[in-house]
Each structure stands twice: as structure tokens, then as C-alpha cells.
């Protein structure tokens, strides 16, 4: 990819805790192209959020160790000082969090909060910033934007608050938007509206996006490419349609088989993987998924490399099971289909 905005290499994030070192992210590589939408898909404890938060230094803490490199415009975000990072965060790379109920200051009018976000990065008079804030609110579909500047967050519904968060995130026309489960707390009809809005603002600003989600169907509807994470590692990646139609890794089969699908006949039972996702950093060595994998065998004590096995270029996965065997083991319920709005 010649035109990449973000290049993540060998990213490791670990935390020293009372119960030992937790390896939240254990060696992750990916690149984000200009205007690309990349989905990082996984369950709780997969390391998907820790990966995204680390890009912006939001996992920096006394007990945290970060390794690897995150290259953005020729500089390494992991090695930047807090002051340097502040110039990037919210300006060139902005974040939209999951819970719009807790990410706004409840005792400050939303207009002031947007003005603050603008003036943190751009020299602009208060009055000008205020007009810009009203423009932004209008841009994200809030009616009577000017009057609503002085409203407090509790006057907005969940979907509206998420719109305010998006207005704040795009205030400085960022190159990269990171959206961490932006619609998990919202109803499906509102989810569809929010992603329509995100598509529109990306069209206007030309920004790339990293979408963190547990929902492979949503990822397929929204993203260009996907990383599937498990236990702090990437287990499968590729163009999102390929991963969805032709999943290669047994964990991806499990993720797809576990969701009841509206696009096919209803099975009597869902294809479910046993056990629960490992707690953060608690995955076994070797293949992280082997303790839950119904097809694990001796080789799985060693971790397989990411290798292209799917038909399409760039579709890679991390599994020792050979191609022909896979074709036999893979449940039919998880192959094919399409997603999208």
C-alpha cells in the first residue's frame, strides 16, 4: 500500500498487575491506507481496544509497557512525548468512544465542549470557534444547531450524544478516526443512521477509520478490510468481504456461526464454540485459540505464522490445519452470504 497513513509494527502492550504481567496486545502488525476503513474484530479480552487506545497513547500508565512502533507521518507515536502526542490526539487522529453517556462532561454545555476541542488545536477566536461548533453540529444532523449549543448533554438522547461526539472528533478534520464500538450502546435503527453519518463525514474530510467492533456483520457492512483478533494476536485478516464469505480460521468460523443470521435459514442449533474468551492476557501459549478450538492437535502448542491460504491475495490466517482438511472441517453455516446495508 503506497499511500499509508498509519503503520503499526510489532505492537505489544502489557500491564504489570498484582496477578502478574497481562499481555493485552502481543505483537500486532498492520497498516492503514488513506481513506481506508479497517475493522478490528474480536470479543472481550481479544486486545482490540487496547490496540486502538495504544495508538493514541491512551494506555500509557506507570504499569504499562509498550513495544513496537506506530508510524504516523514519519514519526513514531509510541516514542512521542506527552506534549507531542497532544498535538496529534484529537487533531490529526481522533477518537469516538463507545459510551456517549459517559464521554461528555455532564456539567458543561455541549457547545463549550466542542469549542474547547477546536481551540485546543487551532488558534481561533471564541466566537469563530462557536460558529464552527454550530456548523459541526448541523453537519452531524442535529436540528437547530445554534440553539442547541447551550444545551447540556442530558438534554440529548444517546444517538444525539454520539453525534455530538462525532462532531467533536471531526472538528479538526483528522486524518484518522478511531471508533471504538461507537454504536454498541445504541438501537439498530440509530446504528444505521450513525454509520451513514460516519460515511458522509469521511467522504467530506477524506479521513481513514479504524472501527473496533465485536460484530463481524457490522464490520462487513462498513469496512474495507478486517483484522480478527484473539488473545492479543491477529488470527485472520483480509478484505472484509473475503473474511466474511470465506473464513479460514476456526475462531472466525465460531464468530460467524455464533451469530444468528437473517440472510439464511434458521438452524435448529447455532454453531457455538465452547468455553469463554480468555480474560485479557490469559490465553495459552502456542495458538492462543487452541484451548477452545474443537480441531486442535499436537502442532498447536506452537503458534502458526500468518499465512495466505484463502483464495484472495492479502487474506491471511494463523492456523496449522491444512487447506483440504479445512474445507472438510469448516461448517457450511459460516460460508458465503453477504452483509451490507
Amino acid at each position, binding site marked *: 500500500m503506497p499511500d499509508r497513513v498509519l503503520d503499526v509494527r510489532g505492537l505489544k502492550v502489557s500491564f504489570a498487575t498484582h496477578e502478574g504481567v497481562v499481555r493485552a496486545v502481543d505483537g500486532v502488525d498492520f497498516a492503514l491506507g488513506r481513506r481506508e476503513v479497517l475493522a478490528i474484530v474480536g470479543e472481550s479480552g481479544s486486545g482490540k481496544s487496547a490496540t486502538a487506545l495504544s495508538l493514541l497513547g491512551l494506555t500509557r500508565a506507570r504499569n504499562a509497557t509498550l513495544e513496537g512502533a506506530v508510524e504516523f507521518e514519519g514519526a513514531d507515536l509510541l516514542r512521542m512525548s506527552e506534549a507531542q502526542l497532544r498535538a496529534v490526539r484529537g487533531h490529526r487522529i481522533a477518537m469516538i468512544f463507545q459510551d456517549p453517556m459517559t464521554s461528555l462532561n455532564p456539567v458543561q454545555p455541549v457547545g463549550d465542549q466542542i469549542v474547547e476541542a477546536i481551540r485546543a488545536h487551532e488558534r481561533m477566536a471564541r466566537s469563530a470557534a462557536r460558529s464552527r461548533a454550530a456548523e459541526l453540529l448541523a453537519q452531524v444532523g442535529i436540528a437547530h444547531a445554534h440553539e442547541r449549543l447551550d444545551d447540556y448533554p442530558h438534554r440529548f438522547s444517546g444517538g444525539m450524544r454520539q453525534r455530538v461526539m462525532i462532531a467533536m472528533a471531526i472538528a479538526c478534520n483528522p486524518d484518522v478516526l478511531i471508533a471504538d464500538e461507537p454504536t454498541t450502546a445504541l438501537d439498530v435503527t440509530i446504528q444505521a443512521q450513525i454509520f451513514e453519518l460516519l460515511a458522509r463525514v469521511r467522504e467530506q474530510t477524506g479521513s481513514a477509520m479504524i472501527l473496533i467492533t465485536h460484530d463481524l456483520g457490522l464490520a462487513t457492512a462498513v469496512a474495507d478490510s478486517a483484522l480478527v483478533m484473539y488473545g492479543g494476536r491477529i488470527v485472520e485478516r483480509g478484505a472484509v468481504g473475503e473474511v466474511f464469505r470465506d473464513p479460514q480460521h476456526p475462531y472466525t468460523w465460531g464468530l460467524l456461526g455464533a451469530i444468528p443470521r437473517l440472510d439464511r435459514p434458521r438452524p435448529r442449533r447455532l454453531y457455538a464454540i*465452547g468455553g*469463554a474468551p480468555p480474560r485479557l492476557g490469559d490465553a495459552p501459549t502456542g495458538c492462543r485459540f487452541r484451548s477452545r478450538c474443537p480441531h486442535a492437535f499436537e502442532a498447536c502448542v506452537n503458534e502458526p505464522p500468518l499465512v495466505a491460504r484463502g483464495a484472495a491475495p492479502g487474506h491471511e490466517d494463523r492456523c496449522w490445519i491444512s487447506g483440504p482438511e479445512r474445507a472438510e472441517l469448516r461448517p457450511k453455516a459460516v460460508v458465503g452470504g453477504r452483509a451490507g446495508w
Partner: protein
Amino acid sequence: MSEILLEARDLVKHFPVRKGVRRRQVGAVRAVDGVSLQVRAGETLGLVGESGSGKSTLARCLVRMLMPTAGEIEFGGRRIEGLGDAALRPLRRELQMVFQDPYASLNPRKRVGAIVGAPLRMHQIGDRAARRKRVLELLEAVGLTPDHYERFPHEFSGGQRQRVSIARALALAPRLIVADEPVSALDVSVQAQILNLLADLRDELGLTYVFVSHDLAVVRQVSDRVAVMYLGRLVEVSPAEELYQRPIMPYTAALLAAVPEAAPPAGRERIVLRGEVASALAPPPGCRLHPRCPFATDVCREVEPPLRDFGGGHVAACHHPLNVNQEVSRNAAEGSASSQP
């Protein structure tokens, strides 16, 4: 057709809104605003809607955790809407509930054995040894093991906790279980396990479920019939598969279209709702959906459409029904104003 186990007639639940020092009532949240439905023995009735639709309030009225403001509830041939606590106690043996959040619905200070055995103790069933034996059977039935008996809830994952909740609900061998978003708080791989478990238990024990969820795909997986709620009213009730193939109310169609895995069949237009659910303090006049509905006309703004029978147990409340040919629609209009779902 099997017997009717539970029936609600014109059920209403309003929550008063009080203001000022004298706490005068200034309005009411009309959470459930005239709902009639029947649950037949052995079936699973799915109840879907967005947040604010009143689905949880309706569920809680049906199990009499809440006392309805008006209307009738008949369970097993007996009127239960007005029963007091003492009169309700024997009913609790037959009517149980499973909640959404397995972290909040188990007492953290009690061992799992005591939690699951509590209903038996309260109803003075068997001696200690017999109760212990029954609890061990229940744990096994939900996929837990005897050594879980002495453990505390915090030692369990979300999925295991939900299994404990289900075991507790089963302890008194109820006839009806009302499950309110029982898998919404779980990771997708675990969600599939719990859905399979609920299906197995239903087949083994001949249970009847009312399954409340915002997730249409999940509801389709478990339900025989589905009831769709909007702003305190039922807007469509139908055999499950029929509802997904041929939604009549635009609201249902829009909900389906908002699910990313449900790329609409080629040629069918995608229906998008504007805005958000109106306030249940002052529902819109006429059809409650009209401010959001792309098909709304004058009649929708003035006249609330009654539930009309479109044949095959499919009823819907809409002036502009979808997927229905003219003749059926006319017959429904002539035959129905009073039809009951």
C-alpha cells in the same frame, strides 16, 4: 393449536411523573399503552422493539413484577393482574424470569448452590439433602458441574453466570419463563451457547418462553411467533419466519433493514426511519410511528391504525401495509377493527 397459557388484555402500565415540593403528578410515562396478546403453552413468543418501546415493562407486568395500571392478565385460567404479594407467591412457582445482566442479578455474597437453591428453600420444598440433590441436577442441566456448587458468582464468567440465573429460574419447574435480553450482555460466542441451552431446555422440559430482545436475529433464532412493539403498543404479531419474509408494518421492515447481516434481497427497497423514538410522555397522535415513517400520510397523523388480521396469524397495525396485495388488505380492513393477536 395448543391451549393459551398467558393472556394479556388491554394491558396498560403508566409511570407517574411528579414535580414540585408537593409531588403533584404532572404527567405519565405511558410505557405500555393498551397491549393484548396471547402466549400458547409450549411456544416461544419473541418480543422485539427499540429501547423505550415498553418491551421490558410489558415483560415485567406479565410476570407481575409490576402491577399494571389497567387491563387484565390471565395465567393458566386465573386472573392475576391484581394479586398482592401473598397471593402471588404460589404463582412464582410457575412463572419465572431471567434477567439481562448476570453481574447484577446474582447476590455476590452467596454461593452458587445457595443462589440456585433459594427458590426451593423459600417455597419449603424438600429437606436439605433433597434440595442439594435438586440443585446439583439443575447445575448439570445448564452445563455446570458439581464443583461449581460451592463457588461464588465472581469466580464465573458472564456466560456461566447466566447459566446460574437460568438454573435458578428452573428450580421450581416453572411453566413459563420470561427472559429479558438474556444474551445481550454476553460475548457472541457465549451468546450462541446460551441460546442453544435455552432451546435444549425448552425441548426437554416443555417450557414456554417469552423472549424479550432488541436483536431481531436472536429473536428469530429462538421464537415461534414474534410480537413487535413501538412506543407502548404492539404494531405487528406474526409467526416468526413469516415476519422476516414478509414484514407488513414499515417499522418492522426498517428494523430488519438496519441489521447489517441482512442485506436486503435484490429489488426490495431498504426502508430507513428518520429520527428517534418519540417520548412516551406524549406519544404522537394517530399512528405513533408517523413522524419517522417514510410512508406517512394525513390519515396516519390523525387515526391510530387498529391491529388488522392479514391471515395466517399475521396481524399488523398500519394504514399503508407492505408486502400485502390490495385484496387481502381490503378484507382485513373490513373484517377486523376488533381482531386480537
